[in-house]
Every structure is written in C-alpha cells, then in structure tokens.
C-alpha cells in the first residue's frame, strides 16, 4: 500500500505542512531595514515545498490512473517485504525510554539495559540467550563509559551511580 499510495499521502502531508509553515512565518518580526528579513527564507521553503509536493501529487495521481486503466493490472508486484512492526516500534520505544532516563539513571545502567533488550528484540528466537546478551551488554557499556570518560573526557551522565 505504501508503494501504491505512498507518494500521494506524502505529498498531501507535505502540502499541509507547507501551509502551516508559511502561516507561522507571519509571527517573525522584521528587525532590520532591509528588503528581506528573517521570514523570507522560511517563506521561500514553504512555497517551494508546496509547489514541489503539488507536482509530486499530480505525477503520482497520473501514475495511479495509468496503472488502473491498464486492464489486468499486476497489482501484486511480487516483492513485498514483510515489515516487522512490533520489532520496529519496540526499537523506537526502547530508544525513547533510553534517552529519557539517560540523565537521571545514568549511562552505565541505561546502556546495559538498552543493549540487552535491543539485542533480544533483533535476534531470532532460536538465538535468544539472555545471559550471553547481558555479558556482551555489560562489557560494551563499561568499556564505552570508561574509555570515553577517562581517555576522551566526554562527561557521560553517571546518574544514580555517581
């Protein structure tokens, strides 16, 4: 479906965003005596996105029409790779939790937890070995933490352990 209607959805979304962007530029004040102020570039971008999304919409509608009028349309184009939404959304959620708690809980604990869960999420059921993943996670997060903190002086948050 994304393949067939993707461009139409995308262009509609972009056209609406462009309008919102354009309207929001009205609040930008002119601070210099010049022909163009700080609102000029955002307005140009909004107009540009609007026009080119329009062209994209027109092209994709045309294409869709061409496909539909063609009798016996080979609707299924064969290669329709399965998207594993659970794994995808799970990964995004994991990353969000990781970043939200990074400061308060600390880099070491959060990174270990993140790596264990992310590996388990990505690995096949047959390969799931939590103990092994845990060891990998501990070693890598401790190594990253100490290398960056003491050798490269990147002050990673120590959180509750600090």
């Amino acid at each position, binding site marked *: 479906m*994304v393949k067939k209607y*993707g*461009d139409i959805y*995308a262009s509609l979304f972009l056209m609406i965003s462009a309008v919102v962007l354009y309207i*929001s530029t009205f609040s*930008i*004040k002119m601070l*210099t005596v*010049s*022909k*163009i*102020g*700080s609102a*000029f*570039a*955002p307005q140009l*971008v909004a107009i*540009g*996105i609007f026009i*080119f999304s329009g*062209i*994209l919409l027109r*092209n994709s509608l045309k294409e869709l029409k*061409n496909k539909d009028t*063609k009798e016996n349309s080979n609707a299924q184009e064969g290669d329709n790779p399965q*998207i*594993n*939404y659970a*794994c*995808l959304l*799970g*990964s*995004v959620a994991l*990353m*969000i939790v*990781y*970043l939200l708690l*990074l400061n308060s809980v600390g880099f070491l604990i959060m*990174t270990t937890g*993140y*790596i264990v869960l*992310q*590996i388990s999420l*990505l*690995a*096949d059921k047959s*390969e799931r070995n939590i103990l092994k*993943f845990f060891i*990998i*996670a501990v070693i*890598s997060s401790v190594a*990253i933490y100490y290398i*960056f903190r003491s*050798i*490269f*002086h*990147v*002050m*990673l*948050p120590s959180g509750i352990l600090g």
Partner: protein
Amino acid sequence: MLEMLLAGFVSIFTFKSMSLITLGTLLGIIFGLIPGLTATMAVAICLPITYGMHPIEGMALLMGLYIGGVSGGLIPAILLKIPGTPSCISTTFDGYPMAQKGEAGKALSWSIIVSFIGGILSIIVLILIAPPLAKLAVKFGPYEYFAIAIFSLTLIASLAGDSLVKGILSGFFGVGFSLVGFAPIDAYPRFTFGFDELDGGFNLLPVLIGLFAVSEILLAAESKYKSKKQNHSFSISGYGIPLKEFFGQTWNMIRSSAIGIAIGILPGIGGGTANIIAYVAAKNQSKYPEKFGTGIPDGIVASESSNNSATGGALVPLISLGIPGDTVTAMLLGGLMLHGLQPGPLLFQTAGDVVYGIFASLIVANVVMVIFLYAGMKWFVKCLSVPQHILLPIITALCVVGAYGVNNRVFDVGALLFFGILGYIMMKFNFSVIPLVLGFILGPIAETNLRRGLMLSQGDFTPFLTEPIAAGFLLVTVFSVAMKVWKSRKQRKAATDAIDM
C-alpha cells in the same frame, strides 16, 4: 607547496598520529566490509573520540577511517558477491565471477592495487587543485557564495536518487531544518518552540548520525535480522598480475580515476555513484563489452579505481569552499568545526598545518590500507560472521555517546533520535536523505550571503546577476536544471509510451 606538504608529513610522523591512522584504517576496513555499516557510520561514531585530541591527530584518525571504509567493501564484493558498501556494487559484477573461476587472489590483487592508484591520483589532484581554488575563493564575496550554494543545492537535488521532484523536496527539508534557531544577521529566533536548546539550531552531528546510522538500525529492526549462516567457501591463491596485463589497463585506470575524481568534486555524491558510472564507461568503450560481467579485470579496475579516487575529489570542495563532496566529508565538516576550524578558503591561512596534515594522512592511510588488505584478508572475511543483531545495538550506544558529547546534553540525543526516525520514514517513502544533508549545510550559507549581499548592494539584486563568477554559477544552475527536467520528461514519456504499447 612541497614544503608545506613535507611539514604535513612531519606533523603526522609521530607515534600517536601514525597509530591513529593505522587504527582508523583498520576500523574503516571492518566497517566497509560489513554490509549495512558504512564509512559514514565509522566516522560518525569515532568523531567523539577526536574531541579531546589535537586537530591534526583527530583528522589523521578520520582520514584512516575514510580510506579504510571506502576500500574494505571490496573483499566481500569479490568473495561473496555482497557489496560491503554502495561504493563497490559494480565490483561484484566481475569480481565474483573471477573468484568463482578460481581467480579470487588475482581479483583481490587487482582491486587493492587499483584502489591504491585511484586513491593516490585523487590525492595528487586534491593537493594541486585545492590551494589555488582556495586562493581564488578567498576573493569571493556574498554574491559568489550565494550563487555557489544555489548551484550545489540544485545539483545535488537533481543527481541524488531517481526522482528529481523528491530530490528537490528533500533539499527543501534540509534548508527548512537549518532555519531553526537564531536567524543570520538579526539573530531573530525562528521555530525554537520555546526550547532554549534550539536557539543555536540543530547541531550538524546529531543530524548526520541520526540520518545515516540510527535510520539504518531501524531498517534492520523492521526486517528483523534473519541470521543467514552462510558457509563461505573460497580459496585465495595466485596474487600475481603479469606486468603486461597491468599496463594494458592503464587507460582504463586513468579514465575511471578521472570519473571518480570529477564525481567526487560534485557536491553530495561520491564513490557510490562513481563506481557505476565508471563501470558503464569502461564497458561502453571496451573492444569486448560482451565479456563484462563474466569475470574480467577491466570491470574491477573501473569500479575500484573510481570509488577510491572519489575520496580525494570529495575533499576538494570541502577544503577550498567549505562545501562537502559526499556524506563522509559532510561528517568531516562537522569534525573540523568541533575543533573550531571553519572549512573554507581561509582554512589554508588559519590552519594550513591541519590541511597539509590531512593531505599527508590521506597518503599514509592509502599505504596502510594496501598493507592491511593484503595481510589480513582471511581474517577480515571472518568479521562478516559477527551477527548484526549484536553489532547494531552497540553502534546505537556509540551514536548516543557521539550526540551527547557535542554539547554534553541529552537534548542532542533527542535530536539524534528524531533525525533517525525522519531518515527512516524518508527512506520508506523513497526520498534520498543526501539532499537533506546538503540543504542543511548549504541553506544557511545561501541565506546569510543573500542577506549580506542585499545589505551590501542596499537592496539591489542585480549584482547577483552581473558579478561574473556569481552570474556564471547561476547560469550553469539554470542550464543543469533545464537539462534534468528535459531528460526526466523524455524518460517519463518513453515509459508511458511503453505502457501504452
């Protein structure tokens, strides 16, 4: 110039710098050969390591990563028909058939040697072109910079990906995101939504790491890595290449390297495009085009010399104009800025030692690359069996460190995630993310110089069209866009005609 280059060598001939180049090249090769990991990613996760280093040492490491990352892909391309990076897609066309004929050693030898030659040729061109170009560019004012930014923006939009409209849209997104934060000239805060952290705009590094590394991890999650336990069976023997055969490829090597350098110089595209164009050019000009794809060295020579020569080419606009030639150099732009160095024509004056240190590091990295590839070939193949479901989460953690380290704040990690998801969605809708990066970098250059120019001319736009260099660039811009529109119309017409038939 020679003295400066010698001084550059002297500055990197320290134990620390040499170890960094060696380490960088080794890591780069490993990233290059594992499919899904790229040179861009390698540079992204190693950037935070360079924070505390001297700029020359930091650049030495990054140059090693760059050269290694572009070269490493040739091993799986030849032995397993898996291009480790997009830069060596066409290496598989003839490399794998050669390996199947029992000539794996010879195919690898060819690749390594021509990679080296291509790399060195491009560095020579870089050293010869960049300084005079920078000297010329020092005289550029706002009119010229505006025109160059517009030229680069349209060029990348028309070259990246297969849809012109989507390329342009992606470029607009990039410009749009670059507008966040204080506006140039009058410092009016735009689109900060009350976040103080956004006053300075999005930092380039989280944007890049998100778009190129985090999105890759989401793609892997989506397809849920299927462990493909392949039994890699191959024998590597017979590295020798007869001298006569070697010199028979001279013209092919020169042509492919020239293609690589030229494509590298164009903003935004690099080895990934160069290798395919060079392969097609070699095939079209060959006396025996029908043999291409059956396992002849010509194809390998074209592909491998062009992708490595794109490296030096991509550094030309970065060093002389401050405009990155490909995604890795966009990352290097961020790396230089971290050290307080503004890439551009003045770099030769403000940090000439760093520039010549970069040149020297590139040459050394090429030599180290050859040694490693020859010596460690069998070991490198083993790296391919490290499962991605273990590698990717660790890389994510390193990305987080990279983003966090920019300003020591979690906000940039949020930006990293945002751009990762954005990159993923764009890829799903078949938008190339490269124009976005270029738009993000070039947008502010275009806007600042437009406003500066208009202030200089007191609101008159004509100098943008009458100053010879600016006018020249704008004219070429119009011409190249018109060409592309005409071409894509013709293609679409041909396609609809084919459907109607």
